[in-house]
């Protein structure tokens, strides 16, 4: 399988699922070519609604559609859709409307457009709402399964997708389950939890670490909420050191969720890798290197963390 952006895999999955499920509709705010719902819109023009550049209205319309039995995928860049947090909080979450919120263009990996288009706080915001699961798939296989899961899930849900292509990381026969994570590489010295755009970099970082004699366990945490607490605690108990790697603010994202879990249940030395400044324009690889989210940066941080 060649690398594919999770937004592209989402667009394909949606089209496929919609063929046999006429409850599925889309609501976009002038970004359907970027969120990749455009294929669905062309195949089902009567079920695709573009409300123009009005994201709060988009979210509310999605809630209303859900309340009449539709399964709306409400899509924009992660920063723009979650930027309408108050509408999500009331019209979707508190109303318990069966809306599938889709935030694409997650993180600094969008590159050249710069900070204004980067979703860097979305996980932190949505995590604070009690009834919205957060799924950030790590590759095409996982994305397609997560989209199928989202259709069947009763209640609101947030799907966080990338602009950039993702290397395949899912093991053969992988089946997505809400609240379950998967060990992609077993190890004994340190647990690396990654999600979305950083998973393959974490795997490559682990390969570098192996050359230094450090055996890292790499876990794909596609489910940021609910976390796979059992798996994370088991791995942390074994390795004694945990590192989270995410293309999101270091505050309130996967790292925050893991910090909350470990500090309450199994205090374990933890290093959170992510973005601690505003983003900026640049090529995605250069940005990942600058923020220490590339394989070399991840390996370096782990070695320092372990005092090697």
């Amino acid at each position, binding site marked *: 399988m060649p690398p594919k952006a999770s937004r592209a895999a989402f667009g394909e999955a949606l089209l496929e699922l919609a063929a046999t499920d006429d409850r599925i*509709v889309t*609501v976009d705010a002038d970004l359907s070519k970027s969120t990749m719902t455009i294929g669905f819109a062309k195949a089902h023009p*009567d*079920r695709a*609604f573009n*409300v*123009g550049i*009005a994201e*709060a*209205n988009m*979210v*509310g*319309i*999605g*809630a*209303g*559609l*859900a*309340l*009449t*039995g*539709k399964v*709306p995928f409400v899509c924009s860049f992660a920063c723009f859709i979650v930027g309408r947090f*108050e*509408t999500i*909080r*009331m*019209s979707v979450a*508190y*109303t*318990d*409307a069966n809306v599938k919120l889709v935030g694409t263009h997650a993180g600094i990996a969008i590159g050249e457009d710069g900070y204004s288009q980067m979703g860097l706080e979305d996980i932190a915001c949505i995590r604070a709402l009690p009834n919205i699961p957060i799924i950030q798939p790590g590759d095409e296989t996982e994305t397609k399964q997560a989209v199928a899961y989202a259709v069947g899930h009763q209640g609101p849900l947030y799907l966080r997708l990338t602009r950039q292509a993702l290397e395949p990381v899912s093991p053969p026969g992988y089946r997505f389950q809400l609240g379950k994570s998967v060990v992609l590489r077993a190890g004994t010295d340190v647990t690396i939890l990654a999600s979305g755009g950083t998973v393959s970099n974490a795997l490559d970082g682990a390969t570098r670490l192996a050359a230094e004699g450090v055996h890292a366990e790499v876990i794909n945490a596609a489910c940021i909420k609910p976390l796979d607490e059992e798996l994370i605690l088991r791995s942390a108990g074994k390795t004694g050191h945990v590192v989270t790697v995410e293309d999101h603010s270091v505050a309130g994202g996967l790292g925050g969720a893991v910090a909350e879990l470990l500090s309450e249940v199994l205090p374990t030395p933890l290093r959170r890798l992510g973005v601690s400044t505003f983003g900026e324009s640049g090529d995605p690889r250069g940005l990942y290197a600058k923020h220490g989210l590339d394989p070399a940066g991840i390996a370096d941080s782990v070695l320092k963390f372990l005092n090697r």
Partner: protein
Amino acid sequence: MARPDTARLQATARACRVQIIRMLAHAGSGHPGGSLSVIDILTTLFFNRLRFDPKRPDWPARDRVVLSKGHCVPALYSVMARAGFFPESQLVTLRKLGSPLQGHPDRTALPGIEAATGSLGQGLSISLGMALGLRLADSPARVYCIIGDGESQEGQVWEAAMAGPKLGQPAHPLDNLCLILDYNKIQLDGFVKKIMDLEPVVAKWKDFGWPVLEIDGHNVEQIDKALDQAEATKGRPTFIVAHTVKGKGVSFMENDPEWHGRAPKPAEAIRAIREILGVSDAAWGDYVKTDRATAAIVAELERLEKT
């Protein structure tokens, strides 16, 4: 629609006003002004217009009411109780711990509430989505959304205003949606005109493509006639500007911003109920002897005063 039984609707609205005052006095907080301004609209909707079944609040073909100005939910609770969604005795649990009668509407707590509202500006977008979903399903159901004038200062209202006449076109126009403005001219901090005037409100909505009707929002015949006209209007949703009086029916609450968000004390509540029922102070003692339901409410308020 049949001609409304005006006297019956007016009597129902009076009874609901009494319940609004009663529940707010027991809650000790809440919003009487806007509840009293919107109650004639809600009464006409629930008792002369809507298709619903209180025993099946999730009936797919039901008409929907989205009270976007969610702080006025006491008015909605009063008509829902009278319509049989829950017993009127439950009204006094408003805002109390564990009650489904939350301070602002909670869909998950009380069957019959269509959406969580109260964070202002969001109800019209939800209503657009509902109206669209019903059109897509070829449902005969209609959607009624009620917004406030202060609420209309929210930007999301205007995103939705722009979308209303356009969304779903041409196959699924949202002519199953009727938007009603409870134009009582007062918001929390004072008079709308002084804080951030909406005028010219009719011209604004016409320019956004909505057919606009202007009525007296306390005249049930005018309300009903406008709802008829809205239902007969094809191809676009209709906007009804209902001119109302904040605190309508209680002399000391009418047109006073103070009563936007303060509950009456028990003695004030008893006086308010007497005024709503149109009984003079001198005749009140004799009246209460003849109206057992009101006597019970008054006795309950007198007990509340002592606690």
